[in-house]
């Protein structure tokens, strides 16, 4: 039995010891401003981007507010203090103007995204995905814009949107995540460099998946992008987000904001495959992923669905949320979070039911291995106005190895007697019976564990768009490779 156990531990080590294949650094000339944050830096960023007065004001207001705050400490995380003056708040690949066509984009940048498997090249048109690639702080290239423009869909970097569609940006920026929301939201509002902007007009069903790929390349920087998605009445869009970073010993900060506005009967599906560099086996380096993501289901019968597969980052601390303000609106949250080595994750969601007949579903699957700590934290709030609200929450944790931790902190606040709210959570390791069954039929332990874990995560994986589902499944397999027991 003991021998068997050792054997299992080896397998666990193997599986969780998978290499990070996106850890390369690209040699792209980068323009960086010196580290530090002050009002001048905020003005400099704004000036470099040639922004209008109102946006500078927005940044300055956020910055002044940020100065009054202290970093939050309530997460179930062991996070060293971040020196916000040691980070450079603007880093961009040097370019002439905006790239008119792919030929003008720095070949190194293209190569980078090629290695990541991002279909930047037009010939990959068949892959049926429009991509906005963001390297360090600026958007590098957005594909398929013309095809989208025909339908009236706007998909571009947020800096372009500020220039081309100032009214839309002004109307929606900060309307879901106020700069006063939290410490990192204030920081992002002050220094955000770029990100994606999506606007789907009334009645349009976006014909392809929209996708943004984020990459931190330069060292000593953080990434502070901002995504704004607006789906007007009766529209539909599926949006994907992926991210990687080079392997470095330092901890890099990623503090983004994603804002989504869903109008009447519109539907937005937001999927994330998060694979920032997670640090090495001893827990050195890795990205701190401290993101504020929130969607507002403003219109009646609107729907917002978050799907996330979290495998990277040294520290993940985020709660993609739905504010259900429209009658009959629906919020969904599907998550698989895998932590290994010394990774830490404190993630979950918030479902705020403000209107009658609102519904929400939460499915969270945590897998922890090695010395990692994986926490689910979620809030379901039903306000007095939300009669007939329904919520079902299911969060399961799987533990691989005896040194990891899996924690659950759900908050349920019900202020309406017609609401039905359910929460279920379980924590266990892979059952001996299942393993034995597989072994007995000639499946080696490691494969069996992969099989079981995949089955365990299937409910969430199934919610991902096709292209991502394959990638996510591969990612899960690589992440767990050698760590399964």
């Amino acid at each position, binding site marked *: 039995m003991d021998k068997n156990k050792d054997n299992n531990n080896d397998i666990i080590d193997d599986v969780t010891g998978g290499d990070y294949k996106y850890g390369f650094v690209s040699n792209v000339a980068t323009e960086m401003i010196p580290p530090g944050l002050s009002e001048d830096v905020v003005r400099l960023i704004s000036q470099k981007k040639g922004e209008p007065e109102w946006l500078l004001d927005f940044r300055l207001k956020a910055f002044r507010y940020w100065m009054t705050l202290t970093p939050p400490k*309530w997460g179930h995380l062991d996070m060293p203090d971040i020196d916000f003056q040691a980070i450079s708040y603007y880093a961009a690949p040097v370019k002439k103007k905006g790239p008119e066509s792919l030929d003008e984009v720095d070949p190194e940048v293209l190569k980078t995204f090629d290695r990541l498997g991002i279909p930047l090249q037009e010939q990959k048109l068949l892959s049926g995905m429009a991509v906005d690639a963001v390297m360090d702080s600026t958007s590098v290239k957005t594909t398929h814009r013309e095809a989208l423009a025909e339908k009236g869909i706007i998909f571009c970097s947020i800096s372009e949107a500020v220039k081309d569609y100032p009214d839309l940006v002004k109307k929606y920026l900060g309307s879901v995540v106020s700069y006063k929301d939290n410490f990192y939201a204030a920081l992002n509002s002050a220094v955000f460099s770029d990100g994606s902007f999506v606007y789907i007009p009334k009645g349009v069903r976006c014909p392809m998946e929209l996708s943004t790929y984020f990459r931190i390349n330069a060292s000593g920087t953080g990434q502070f992008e901002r995504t704004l998605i607006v789906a007007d009445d009766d529209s539909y869009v599926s949006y994907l987000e992926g991210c990687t970073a080079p392997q470095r010993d330092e901890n890099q900060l990623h503090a983004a904001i994603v804002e989504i506005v869903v109008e009447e009967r519109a539907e937005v599906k937001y999927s994330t495959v998060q694979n920032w560099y997670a640090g090495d086996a001893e827990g050195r380096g890795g990205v701190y992923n401290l993101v504020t993501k929130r969607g507002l289901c403003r219109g009646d019968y609107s729907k917002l669905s978050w799907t996330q597969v979290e495998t990277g980052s040294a520290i993940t601390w985020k709660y993609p949320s739905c504010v259900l303000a429209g009658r009959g609106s629906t919020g969904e949250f599907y998550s698989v979070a895998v932590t290994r080595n010394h990774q830490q994750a404190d993630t979950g969601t918030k479902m705020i039911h403000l209107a009658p007949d609102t519904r929400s579903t939460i499915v969270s699957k945590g897998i922890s291995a090695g010395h990692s700590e994986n926490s689910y934290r979620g809030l379901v709030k039903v306000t*007095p106005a939300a009669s007939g609200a329904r919520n079902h929450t299911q969060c399961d*944790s799987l*533990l*691989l*190895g*005896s*040194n*990891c*931790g*899996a*924690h*659950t*902190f*759900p*908050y*349920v*606040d*019900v*202020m*309406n*007697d*017609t*609401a*039905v*709210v*359910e*929460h*279920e*959570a*379980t*924590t*266990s*390791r892979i059952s001996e019976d299942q393993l034995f069954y597989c072994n007995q039929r000639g499946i080696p332990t490691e494969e069996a564990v992969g099989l079981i874990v995949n089955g365990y995560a299937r409910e969430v994986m199934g919610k991902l768009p096709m292209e991502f589902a394959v990638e996510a499944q591969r990612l899960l397999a690589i992440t767990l490779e050698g760590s399964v027991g």
Partner: protein
Amino acid sequence: MGALKQYIDLAREHRSTLDGNAPAALNEGRERALAFLDEARRLPDGSDEGYEKTSVEEMFKPDFGVNVNRVNIPVNVARSFRCDVPNITTLLAVVVNDRFVATSTLQGNLPEGVRVCSLRDVPREELEGYLGRSAGGYDAAMALNSLLLQDGVFIGVDKGVKLHKPVQIVNIFSGGVPLLAPRRVIVAAGEGAEVSILKCDHTQTPGVKFASSEIVEIFAGEDARVEWCDLEESTPDTVRWCQLRCCQQRGSRVNICGATLTNGVTRNEYLIEVEGDGCETLLSGMAIGSGRQHIDNSSFICHSADHGHSDQLFKYVLDENASGAFEGLIEVAHGARHNEAYQSNRNLLASGGARMHTRPQLLIYNDDVKCSHGATTGQLDEAALFYMRSRGIPVDEARKMLMQAFMVDVVSKINLETLRDRLRYLLELRFAGGCGDVSCQGCHENMFNDA
């Protein structure tokens, strides 16, 4: 400094009187309590993690006095005796405000190896071995209680002794002025001992504000069995901050049940540390709220040994403008193997004004576990209501029956059959609206003449 200041000042001012009234072992704790509270500057309020929905600071803000001079407040014990268990005789101890009163049932009736007495009758060294030595760290609840504590109840069951009669502790609030009663119960069950205890809280003078700061410390020795049932029937003007701390040795079995039938503002905290292998822990609670009642239960079970089994069940029925909160935490420590820990919280909101906040939590540091928690908040099953109405049961009655049925599985957790029956009866009374008004006069007077 808000509410806390008056108690600190009072303790400083009357220190010598307090010390004069209380046994020496209790006096030793006052210095530490003062130091702790001086530093804390306030009692926990909504800004403290875990106290979001219940501000203890608010609860203790009114100008409560403490019976420092040990004024003898006369009380008619029998008046509170609806909770008495018929058909069995109990060993009865009464605590009037914060004063221990022995009854005739304790005189000459105690089997050998069993003590039910005031803390002042416990030898100093022995008492020191128990005070504050049970589960949990030193916190505000412990400090406030230790600061003003003058008396309490001691229940000791020696090694191997099985006590078949249940012990009953009746806490009674009585008096004409707002009063704070620091109460302490110590239950020491030796190796292989068995004991069942029923504690009930009553308030006799309606309209007068009362506050209780209570600490219950349970020591379950190896293979001991302890059953603890706590029943609260007080008035809307009563606030209660009750902390139960329990540490379990190898093979011990503990069954704890708390029921809040009528109250004002109640905060119950359960801290259970499972220190020995192979322990069983059952923790259940029920709360029935109407009017502006507020009930907050917080539980923490820590498994630091192997082969433990714990099961928690908390149920709430909240009507009118009542509010409830539940926070439950299960921790399985690193290296603690083969533990099974379950937790369930089910709530019924019966009116538009009722509020429920629930936060079940798991902290698991080991893969060799089976843990789960579940929480639901909803209302009565429409189909069941319809079924009953279609068979001629008026809607109000049908609702009451369903609510009562909802609570039954908490009642069934209690081992003692007669106690179960009694609680079922009290539930029925409560849902019929007959609880809380003290109407049981005369039924047991002969038994308590001497109280």
